[in-house]
């Protein structure tokens, strides 16, 4: 009996052992499966994306800052850009953003308005703020290169990124970098982002020719044979030739650096299934050479001196003047520190499958006396899965900086002065539209890339001081299959 009992216990033990081992392996396998489920997560970016963007900007106006607040402001700019987003793994994305901005500018060309006519050669000097010259600054190319690296936490509730970039043009170069951190909570209904950015910029100052020659040769700049103005006749407002012109207010730069430090906080919240908003607050400190060295200033308490046709002086501020140029009293001077505080609010509402309302408001304040409001409304209209038209309207206003005065209205006793109308009081209206074609299946292929989106955008901009501009932008987005 005992032997029989032992045999039964042995069988039971074997069964138990087998069950336990089976349970252990099944459980282990399940844990392994659970782990593999945990490790699977949607990629932040599914595959390589390439955007080709370009824009053409055209502007006209009659308040050129280079010629002291009057003159031709014609400007054209062409900006091709390429952006490549490369997923390093499920959580990390590397982005390269490379672009150029090639422009021609009538006002910048008038840093030296006498090039075309050859003032230094003793020929007829026919510079005018209303006529573009062939000066060194008449055209330029701005090149910018930026790289950023972004990382997302496994639960997709935390993101951080760093960026580094540089840009350079004929008279300006910049290097900058920054970092941001984003935290989501409340079932991803609430989002908070902190961002810091630093730009270390440097001017390679180009100053107006007459000031440059004075700075180089002192009070003899009209008699020194090496001077650009050697034996060139300078006339007073009566048209009488004189040697009294001296831009003696000009002092050479003590620093050519311009540093910008900014801190930003943004808070986003979903309010309902169709409504969400975001609040942005920036705090920006800029230090260094904050003025533009090429921009002339004229004092009302200084005598006026000209080069060119004396009969055109009476008509100087009219676009009909093509043959006389007012010589600068000084260049723009602005404080070496500026603190900017913009506060923005964006609210988006999903009306239905056809319409979405996007709205934006910004209030801006700085320590130079500027107060500004910006409103923008967009109404994307979806015709079908592929085509979308978005009408866009933007209103903007600003008060003037404390140091602004119109052409020939500054006092020489002031420490700071500018006649740049971009810093004056004005309002503007911008009206435009965007047309977008989206193919979610990227069926049109170019090599291994599928065309995902085609965008075309047009904006017309008008300021109440007479400046008007339009910009056309186009973009192609490709995704690697």
């Amino acid at each position, binding site marked *: 009996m005992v032997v029989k009992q032992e045999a039964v216990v042995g069988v039971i033990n074997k069964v138990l052992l087998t069950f336990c081992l089976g349970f252990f392996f099944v459980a282990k396998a399940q844990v392994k499966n659970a782990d593999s489920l945990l490790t699977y997560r949607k990629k932040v970016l599914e595959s390589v994306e390439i955007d080709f963007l370009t824009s053409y900007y055209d502007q006209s106006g009659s308040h050129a800052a280079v010629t002291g607040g009057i003159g031709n402001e014609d400007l054209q700019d062409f900006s091709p850009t390429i952006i490549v987003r490369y997923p390093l793994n499920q959580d990390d994305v590397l982005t390269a953003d490379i672009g150029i901005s090639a422009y021609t500018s009538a006002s910048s060309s008038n840093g030296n308005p006498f090039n075309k006519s050859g003032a230094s050669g003793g020929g007829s000097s026919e510079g005018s703020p209303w006529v573009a010259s062939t000066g060194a600054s008449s055209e330029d190319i701005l090149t910018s290169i930026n790289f950023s690296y972004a990382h997302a936490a496994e639960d997709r509730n935390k993101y951080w990124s760093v960026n580094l970039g540089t840009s350079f043009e004929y008279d300006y170069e910049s290097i900058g970098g920054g970092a941001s951190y984003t935290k989501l909570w*409340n*079932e991803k209904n609430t989002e908070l982002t902190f961002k810091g950015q630093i730009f270390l910029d440097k001017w390679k100052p180009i100053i107006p020719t007459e000031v440059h020659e004075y700075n180089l040769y002192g009070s003899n700049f009209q008699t020194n044979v090496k001077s650009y103005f050697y034996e060139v006749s300078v006339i007073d407002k009566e048209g009488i030739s004189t040697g009294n012109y001296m831009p003696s207010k000009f002092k050479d730069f003590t620093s050519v650096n311009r540093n910008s430090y*900014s801190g930003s906080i943004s808070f986003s919240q979903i309010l309902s299934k169709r409504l969400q908003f975001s609040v942005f607050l920036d705090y920006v400190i800029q230090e260094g050479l904050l003025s533009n060295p090429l921009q002339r200033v004229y004092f009302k308490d200084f005598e006026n001196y000209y080069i060119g046709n004396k009969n055109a002086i009476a008509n100087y501020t009219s676009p009909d003047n093509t043959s006389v140029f007012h010589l600068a009293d000084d260049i723009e001077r602005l404080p070496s520190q500026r603190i900017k505080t913009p*506060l923005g609010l964006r609210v988006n509402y999903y009306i239905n499958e056809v319409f979405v309302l996007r709205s934006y408001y910004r209030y801006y304040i*700085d320590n130079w006396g500027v107060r500004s409001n910006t409103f923008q409304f967009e109404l994307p209209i979806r015709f079908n899965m592929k085509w979308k038209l978005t009408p866009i309207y933007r209103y903007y206003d600003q008060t003037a900086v404390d140091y602004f005065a119109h052409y020939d209205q500054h006092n020489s006793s002031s420490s700071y002065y500018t006649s740049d109308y971009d810093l004056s009081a004005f309002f503007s209206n911008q009206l435009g539209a965007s047309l977008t074609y989206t193919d979610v299946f990227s069926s049109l292929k170019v090599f291994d890339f599928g065309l995902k989106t085609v965008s075309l955008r047009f904006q017309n901009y008008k300021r109440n001081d007479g400046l008007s501009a339009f910009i056309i932008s186009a973009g192609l987005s490709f995704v690697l299959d």
Partner: protein
Amino acid sequence: MLWAESILLRILKLKMIKQLFLLLTLLFLVQGCIAVKEYNKIYINDTDMQLASPGMERFETNFQIYRETAAGANGGKTGGGCGCN
């Protein structure tokens, strides 16, 4: 009149700080009350509902930074990196 302006500025600053504090309090109260579930976010996740500026807007923002004094508070450039305002 300078002292009057100074007092006015202080009051305005105080008001702004109070308003900012109220705004932040309101924001944090709002976030505690609302939680739309993931499966209900079909409209919120629509590309046009994104709270960032569309990528193509960068060119407009770029010329606005040159032609206007105010900049920033849109998740993009705040100033610096160009010989602009």
